[in-house]
């Protein structure tokens, strides 16, 4: 008999139902914490603003190079929620574009750092006691000891200082933290009977790494990812602040704080916008991280 039997179809339906039920339960645990809902909502709103910045920003042309001195140094008003800067650009519009850069930084760093670190950590833990473990652990220790600002400085002096190179520098020192996390968890799980059972039945190394070991660690990894998203923004801002990251007139939040802080305290509204934007993103990701932790802790 080649076609799927009715029994098999019934089981497939049942499986779908159970999976749906499990998602529902996870959502329920997440929802229980009001603060994580707040965090998630803020992130979604900021993300939408970042994606549709051209349509949402009242003055999209003010994002980059734009000069209208007659409008310069205007305090907040109905026309300019967050005032205008020294060139007469609308700060609110620039902050909205700043969110776009912020999410791009988070996305780029985490995309480079998380898969690399997690895979290397799993491999190092799995091959405990071999040269593979030694190699990966040593290499991570070297990169983890590099101070990000020094790294950014040297990259900026070799290449040009821009936001992409700054994020590469940040990624270079960041991946080892994910190695450490998954390595230590993998080492402690490596000889659990359920792993030995799967191995002794002939499961491949790929299966053991990604189907047995990774799912158990997923909650911890995701929690770290959300909490780290805030850190990426903070470090990115620090690098931009010392002039090694994005360069004016890029509407990057850190760069804006750096440019505008020269006009403190008289023209306080210029710095207020981008600084509040940074704080808001970091806060939102931290709230979300707590919610994610609860979802996985409840299992």
């Amino acid at each position, binding site marked *: 008999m080649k076609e*799927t039997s009715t*029994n098999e179809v019934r089981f497939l339906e049942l499986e779908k139902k159970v999976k749906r039920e499990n998602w529902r339960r996870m959502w329920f645990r997440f929802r229980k914490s009001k603060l994580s809902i707040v965090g998630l909502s803020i992130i979604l709103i900021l993300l939408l603003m970042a994606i549709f910045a051209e349509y949402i920003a009242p003055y999209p042309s003010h994002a980059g190079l734009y000069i209208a001195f007659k409008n310069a140094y205007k305090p907040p008003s109905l026309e300019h929620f967050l005032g205008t800067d020294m060139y007469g650009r609308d700060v609110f519009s620039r902050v909205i574009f700043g969110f776009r850069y912020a999410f791009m930084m988070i996305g780029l760093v985490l995309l480079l750092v998380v898969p690399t670190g997690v895979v290397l950590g799993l491999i190092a833990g799995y091959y405990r006691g071999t040269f593979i473990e030694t190699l990966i652990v040593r290499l991570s220790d070297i990169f983890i000891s590099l101070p990000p600002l020094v790294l950014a400085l040297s990259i900026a002096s070799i290449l040009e200082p821009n936001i992409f190179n700054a994020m590469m520098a940040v990624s270079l020192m960041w991946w080892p933290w994910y190695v450490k996390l998954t390595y230590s968890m993998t080492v402690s799980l490596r000889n659990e009977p359920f792993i030995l059972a799967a191995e002794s039945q002939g499961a491949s190394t790929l299966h053991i790494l990604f189907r047995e070991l990774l*799912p158990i660690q997923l909650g911890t990894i995701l929690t770290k990812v959300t909490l780290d998203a805030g850190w990426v923004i903070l470090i990115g801002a620090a690098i931009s602040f010392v002039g090694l990251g994005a360069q004016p007139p890029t509407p990057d939040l850190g760069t804006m704080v750096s440019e505008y802080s020269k006009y403190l305290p008289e023209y306080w509204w210029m710095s207020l916008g981008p600084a509040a934007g940074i704080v808001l993103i970091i806060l939102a990701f931290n709230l979300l991280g707590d919610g994610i932790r609860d979802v996985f802790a409840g*299992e």
Partner: protein
Amino acid sequence: MQDDVILYVSGLKKYFNTTEGVVRAVDGISFNVKYGETLALVGESGSGKTTTGHVIMGFYPPDDGKIIYKNKYELSVPMKKRPLELKRDIQIVFQDPGTSLNPKRLVKDIISLPLLIHKIVDKKKIYERVAELLEYVGLSEEFMFKYPHELGGGEKQLVAIARALAPQPSFIILDESTSALDVSSQAKVLNTLVKIQKELRLTYLLITHDLGVVRNISQRVMIMYLGKIYEEAPTEKFFKSPMHPYTQMLLSSIPTLSEEDEKIKPKGIESIGEIPSAVKPPSGCRFHTRCPFAKPICSQQDPPDIVLDSNHIVRCWLYE
């Protein structure tokens, strides 16, 4: 080697290097397991039973000795280098139900893994086979879509048994598979194991410290103490006429159920002392520090194998 032997073990040793010194977990043991039998490996905690099972599984290589399976496979080869058919044919059920199943995998994923690896059934019939296996060990098909944390201890062990049966093995190592369970689950799991063995003609190496379990389901018994085997006998002889002082001590310490049992229970030998460390095991007969009959020679020389009749072997100077 005789034809009826499925597993031949000879001079097997496994030492562990620890901070306290070398642990001689298994120190030169030899035995045969026959096709279709349940051979019990009995001993106090720390005597080396689990290590023996794990060496057979290939979790770590032996330091010395020979293990031959089905007259053609050399089992000193580590698990990773074994041919796939061996990974199908030899299975293990672990002691702790809490760690024998991956907490993040559905029961149906756990049981279907060996089915897929060894291509036991057509992919389209995986679910049906998983349901059959569950039913076979006495669980309903609803268990397919549960996570381990939704199951009780006995149910987890039954799932572990279904997983072991899935690839249609001929040899299963049961490492204290019921000792962590409450009495009623224990009975259920044991009954299931007995039924399965009869129907599928499986061979069991039953590792346990529970003599009640031994009496109920095994045909032969081996007594292990500090890495060595000291007595080997058919179950009936083992309980009726235990020869080794250590066996007598173990038997006198179990509660009996009937008058009849009480009569045949060995007298005058009380359980004394603790099992010594496997790092510095006693010289000669390792039991001499606790043995009421110890003679001078006992602490100097290892007792030889003494064959009392064809299948009753004892290692003790008393019978020299």
